[in-house]
């Protein structure tokens, strides 16, 4: 077993990894930028070291500083989390040079699968179906126009180095190509320092369904069922569930086996995800491989009963997978939503700031993987994700009902969040029927934002009037805010007393 793990990340995923370490009896070491000194991941880790100023480029993205911290703390392993350096092969290379186990695949496998064109060649060798398109970066606009004509519009321009929808453009017709080419290339250059793009046929209303795989260093590779991540906003997943409401046992087996073939072909080790698009006829097409733990890994954990982070640590420590494919049993249904500090009503404007009060939901079937706490100031420098709320149930209906219930319990003041939007999505009839595709939310969003209130207006207004009045008149409020006694009392009673005082002929203060 590994003994001490440097967690090269921040926020909820760093907390998640520290929890796994704690449960395994492995020491956890956090790193933090100047903006993150009071972050939860620093507080829950056994040790913590500063790695530089707030901007990621000067802290979390600095391999040299991470190696320094790992050496200082005497770590024998490093977990990259997701994002930041998680898919940069230089990180496992630096780990190897410093004698530190990297909790993830080899730099070679990462490099191979990180390049979309190399990954497609690999998929072809492994007999994994792909969306028709080219495998090589396209040289110039003229080539792009020619290839698109051959494939037939609509087509999708995608960054070779890409991920998360950056550097991706849908091109509906030839006339849109020049602008799309320019935008995709420059966005890719900005985001990844690599402006190269390639082209695929665009599928109508496809689903995004991905397969979680695990591979040890002893030749064992398994798949842990699928996750449906079709609810996306601008190519960013916002809700993920397992199993997919569209899945059949046959399709799961075909997709799972294709993913395992691909992983074996790449000599892949540790946890990874093979992403597919699935069309209405249940044909599936290879999309890409994420060579790391995914944000949405908890839904797989809840249906399999496994702990993926602990398994990652065991695999990196050289252990064999403690189960075979036939031992993996999926039970029930799990669904996750990503909670962000943002304002959906105001064009998803980020809403950093200080969390004044925070009520975490819990109870049957609920799991919250968060990285914040009351009094914490969400920094402006990073992705504004607060955490993930996950619900499991006997079936999809129960999991969804529980997530909705938990979202209603979730209460946060001081910053705005997207929690209420999820309630509306979960109540949408198309969502309830599982009729999803990757652009579903983008198309549905205006309706969901404008309408879809879940609280009856009249009754809510009456309650708002009463609370507003009491707040307005509350003479004791200032004292209360000082936390002098903390005793919760009936505001109504207190007001009654105040009114009595008002009526009596005493001099006013």
């Amino acid at each position, binding site marked *: 077993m590994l003994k001490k793990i440097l967690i090269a990340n921040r926020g909820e995923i760093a907390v998640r990894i520290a929890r796994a370490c704690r449960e395994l009896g492995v020491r956890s070491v956090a790193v933090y930028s100047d903006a993150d000194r009071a972050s939860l991941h620093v507080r829950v880790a056994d040790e913590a070291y500063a790695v530089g100023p707030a901007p990621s480029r000067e802290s979390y993205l600095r391999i040299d500083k991470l190696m320094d911290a790992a050496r200082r703390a005497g770590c024998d392993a490093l977990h990259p989390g997701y994002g930041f350096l998680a898919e940069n092969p230089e990180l496992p290379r630096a780990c190897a040079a410093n004698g530190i186990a990297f909790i993830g695949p080899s730099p070679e496998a990462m490099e191979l699968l990180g390049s979309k064109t190399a990954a497609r060649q690999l998929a072809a060798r492994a007999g994994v179906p792909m969306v028709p398109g080219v495998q090589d970066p396209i040289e110039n606009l003229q080539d792009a126009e020619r290839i698109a004509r051959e494939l037939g519009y609509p087509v999708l321009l995608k960054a070779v180095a890409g991920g998360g929808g950056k550097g991706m453009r849908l091109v509906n017709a030839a006339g849109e190509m020049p602008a799309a080419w320019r935008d995709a290339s420059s966005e890719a250059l900005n985001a990844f320092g690599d402006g190269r793009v390639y082209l695929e046929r665009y599928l109508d209303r496809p689903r995004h369904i991905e397969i979680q795989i695990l591979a040890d260093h002893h030749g064992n590779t398994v798949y842990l069922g699928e996750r449906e991540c079709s609810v996306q906003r601008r190519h960013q997943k916002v809700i993920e569930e397992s199993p997919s409401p569209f899945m059949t046992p046959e399709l799961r087996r075909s997709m799972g086996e294709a993913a395992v073939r691909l992983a074996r072909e790449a000599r892949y080790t540790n946890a990874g995800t093979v992403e597919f698009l699935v069309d209405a006829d249940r044909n599936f097409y290879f999309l890409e491989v994420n060579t790391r733990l995914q944000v949405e890994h908890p839904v797989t954990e809840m249906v399999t009963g496994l702990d993926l982070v602990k398994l990652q640590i065991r695999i990196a420590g050289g252990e064999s997978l403690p189960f075979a494919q036939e031992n993996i049993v999926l039970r029930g249904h799990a669904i996750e939503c990503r909670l962000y500090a943002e304002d959906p009503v105001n064009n998803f404007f980020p809403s950093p700031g200080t969390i004044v009060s925070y009520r975490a939901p819990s109870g049957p079937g609920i799991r919250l993987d968060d990285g914040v706490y009351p009094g914490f100031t969400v920094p402006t420098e990073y992705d504004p994700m607060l955490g993930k709320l996950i619900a499991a149930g006997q079936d999809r209906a129960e999991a969804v009902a529980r997530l909705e219930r938990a979202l209603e319990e979730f209460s946060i003041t001081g910053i705005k969040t997207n929690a209420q939007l999820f309630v509306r999505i979960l109540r949408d009839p198309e969502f309830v029927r599982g009729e999803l595709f990757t652009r579903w939310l983008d198309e549905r969003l205006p309706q969901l934002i404008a309408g879809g209130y879940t609280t009856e207006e009249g009754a809510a207004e009456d*309650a708002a009037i009463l609370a*507003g009045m009491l707040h307005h008149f509350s003479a004791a409020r200032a004292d209360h805010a000082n936390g002098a006694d903390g005793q919760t009392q009936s505001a109504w009673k207190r007001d009654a007393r105040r009114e009595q005082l008002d009526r009596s002929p005493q001099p006013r203060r």
Partner: protein
Amino acid sequence: MKLDLRINGAKRSVEFDTARREVTIDGRKMVADAAEISSGAYSILLDGQSFEVSVEASGGGLLVRAGDREFQMQIFDPRSWRRGRSGSIELEGRQEIVAPMPGKIVRVLATPGEKVEAGQGLLVIEAMKMQNEIRSPKSGTLERLAREGNTVRAGEILAVVT
């Protein structure tokens, strides 16, 4: 006690009798009870219905949230003048648009002096690696506008529309 208020633009007349725990809104009488849970958070019971309501000051009035409903509320309280509290009802007139968060003005989309429509984009601010368009809250004349390239703090005035 009796008073008038405006909630999401509509006028309401409210009477409350704390001794009998009754509230009457526009003539509808209800049994009412309230408990303050924490500063600005209330548990309200109205004819037995249970509500969680949060209240915060917002633009001279109150922003009140109950369930997923949001209400803007102004109270006309004759006594509030004595206390020097604001009961202002300025919903129209001069509008200041402030930066909701620290960021950088990456593009301006209008010119001071120009007539603008409600909803028209005025400038683009970049924060947390995302660009966001700031729109005019009303039709009128753009009086002031932040400069392209400037860094702004949260709460700083970005534009004024009159």
